[in-house]
C-alpha cells in the first residue's frame, strides 16, 4: 500500500465548522480525501454528514441559514476562491438519499448537465448518454425507451439514473449521500460494483448509514458523531479495533446509533 502522505490530496478539509443559526451541525473537522479513493463517512443521524457534503460544492449558498466557516480545498484551491461556482459544482457530482428522477425523459435527464455545459450536437449527446447509462449499469434496461419519463422508472432504476446523471457532468468527485436507503439489496450490490469500478477514474465520498457498506467499499472512513469528527483512518484498521476512541468501537459494534 502507498503511504498516505505520498498520495495526491483531492479535498482538504481544515477546521470546517457548519452552523444553522445557533445550532452547530459540524464542529472544527479537519481531514483529507485522496484522489481515486472511496472515502466513507459513517455516523448516526444528525452527525453533520449531509451538511458536510453540502459545504463541499457550496450548496450552503442555496440553503437559508446555513453558515460555513473554515476551509474546503478542492485540488488545492479554496472552494470560495472558485470564481465560477457553477463550474465547481459541475466537477462535483451528487447523488441523493432518495432518487430524483427529473420529470424529463431518460435521455434528457442524462443530457441535461452536458446541455447546461453548452453541448448541442446530437451525436455527442448520444454518446454521453449511452456511456453514462452504461457506467451506471442501467443502459441495457432502458435502451429501448430512452424517450420515456425518467420519473416513472422504479426506485432502483431511478437511483442508477441519478448516478448516470451525476456522471454526465464528468465530475472529478462523486458524492453519494446514503444512496441505498430507497434501493433494493440487489440494485445496491450492482451500484456498489459500479462504484468500485469508478474509483479508478474519480474520487468518491460515500456517506452511509450502513456500517457494513462502508466496510465493503471505503478505503478510508471517517466517523462523525453529533457534529464532531471522532475518528478518521483506514477502514480495515477501524474495523479491526485499531481505534483511538471507544465511541467508534461502540458504534461499529452497534451499541448505539
Amino acid at each position: 500500500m502507498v503511504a498516505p502522505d505520498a498520495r495526491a490530496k483531492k479535498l482538504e478539509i481544515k477546521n470546517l465548522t457548519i452552523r444553522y443559526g445557533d445550532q452547530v451541525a459540524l464542529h472544527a473537522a479537519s481531514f483529507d480525501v485522496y484522489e481515486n479513493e472511496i472515502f466513507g463517512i459513517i455516523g448516526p443521524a444528525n452527525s453533520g454528514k449531509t451538511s458536510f457534503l453540502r459545504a463541499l460544492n457550496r450548496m450552503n449558498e442555496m440553503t437559508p441559514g446555513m453558515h460555513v466557516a473554515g476551509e474546503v480545498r478542492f485540488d488545492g484551491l479554496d472552494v470560495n476562491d472558485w470564481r465560477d461556482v457553477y463550474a465547481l459544482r459541475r466537477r462535483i457530482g451528487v447523488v441523493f438519499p432518495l432518487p430524483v428522477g427529473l420529470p424529463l425523459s431518460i435521455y434528457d435527464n442524462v443530457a441535461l448537465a452536458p446541455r447546461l455545459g453548452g453541448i448541442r450536437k446530437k451525436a455527442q449527446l448520444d454518446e454521453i448518454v449511452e456511456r453514462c447509462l452504461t457506467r451506471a449499469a442501467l443502459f441495457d434496461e432502458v435502451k429501448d425507451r430512452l424517450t420515456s419519463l425518467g420519473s416513472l422508472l422504479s426506485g432502483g432504476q431511478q437511483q442508477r439514473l441519478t448516478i448516470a446523471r451525476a456522471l454526465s457532468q464528468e465530475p472529478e468527485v462523486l458524492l453519494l449521500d446514503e444512496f441505498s436507503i430507497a434501493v433494493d439489496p440487489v440494485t445496491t450490490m450492482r451500484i456498489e460494483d459500479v462504484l468500485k469500478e469508478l474509483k479508478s477514474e474519480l474520487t468518491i465520498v460515500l456517506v452511509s448509514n450502513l456500517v457494513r457498506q462502508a466496510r465493503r467499499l471505503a478505503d478510508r472512513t471517517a466517523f462523525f458523531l453529533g457534529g464532531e469528527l471522532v475518528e478518521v483512518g483506514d477502514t480495515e484498521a477501524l474495523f479491526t479495533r485499531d481505534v483511538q476512541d471507544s465511541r467508534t468501537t461502540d458504534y461499529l459494534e452497534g451499541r448505539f446509533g
Partner: protein
Amino acid sequence: MSSSFATTSLNEKNRLRERLFRGLFGLVTITLILPVIIILITLTVKSQGTISLSFFTEYPRNNMTEGGIFPALVGTLWLVAVALIASVPLGVSAAIYLSEYARDNWLTRAINLAIINLAGVPSIVHALFGLGAFVLFFNFGTSILAASLTLAVMTLPVVIVSTRESLQAVPQSFREACWNMGATRWQTIWRIVLPNSISGILTGVILEVSRTVGETAPIMFTGAALFLPFLPTSVYDQTMAMSLHLYIIATQVPGVPPSLPYSVALSLIGIVMVLNAASIALRTYLRGQKKW
C-alpha cells in the same frame, strides 16, 4: 368463533353515523349549487329566448332599448386582453422572484402582506386609484389603457398568489438536483420549474380573466362608456363593456324591454362559465400529463 365476525351494536352505530354525516354533507353541497342553478334558470326564462347570433353581432339601437351587444362584447375583449398583457408578465415575474429568489426576510414578508392586502381592497377603491393614477396622473385619459391597467392592478394579487403556489408545488428536490449539476437558478427555473408548473399558472390566469370580465366599478370612471356607435381602434379610445352595459340598461335607461337586461346578464355569465370550464378542462388535461 363465529361470534367475533358478527355485526356488533357498535359497528351498527358507526354505520348509521357514517350515513348521517354523508347525507348531511351531501345536502349542504347541493344547497350550495342551488343559487347557481336558480340564477341560470331565471335568466334563461326571463330573457325569453331573445339571445340569437344577431344579438352578439348587432349594435344597440334606439337609445339601447333594442338591438344587440356587439360593441360591448368587443370592448370587454379589449379590456381583458390589455389587462392580461399588463398583469400576467408582471404577476408571473413577481411570483417567480418571491418563490425562487427571495429570501425569507422582513422585505419579503412585507411584500407578501401587501399582496394579501391588495387582494382585499374593494374594487371601487381600485376604481378611484385608477382614476387618479392612470387617467389623471399618467394622463391616459378615460381609455382602454387606463381601464385595463386598473383591472390589472386589481387582479395582480390573484396572478401572483396562484403562480407562486404552482411554482412551490414543484418538489424542492428537483431544484436541488439541478443546482448540484451546476445549473444557475434561472436555468433551473427555465428547464425544470416552469415546465412543471405551467398548468397551475394558466389556470390562475384564466380565473383572473373570468373575474376581469365581470368587473364594473374599476372601469366605470377609467375607460368604459355608456354608449358608443363605433368600435375602439386603439388603447387610447374609450369603449363599451358588457358589465357596464348591463348596469346602464338595467337602471339608467327608460323604456328597455324587460327581457333585454336578462339576455345581457345571461351572455355575461355564459362567457364566465365558458372560461371557467376551459380552465378546468386545461387543468385536467395538464394534470394528466403530470410527470411525477
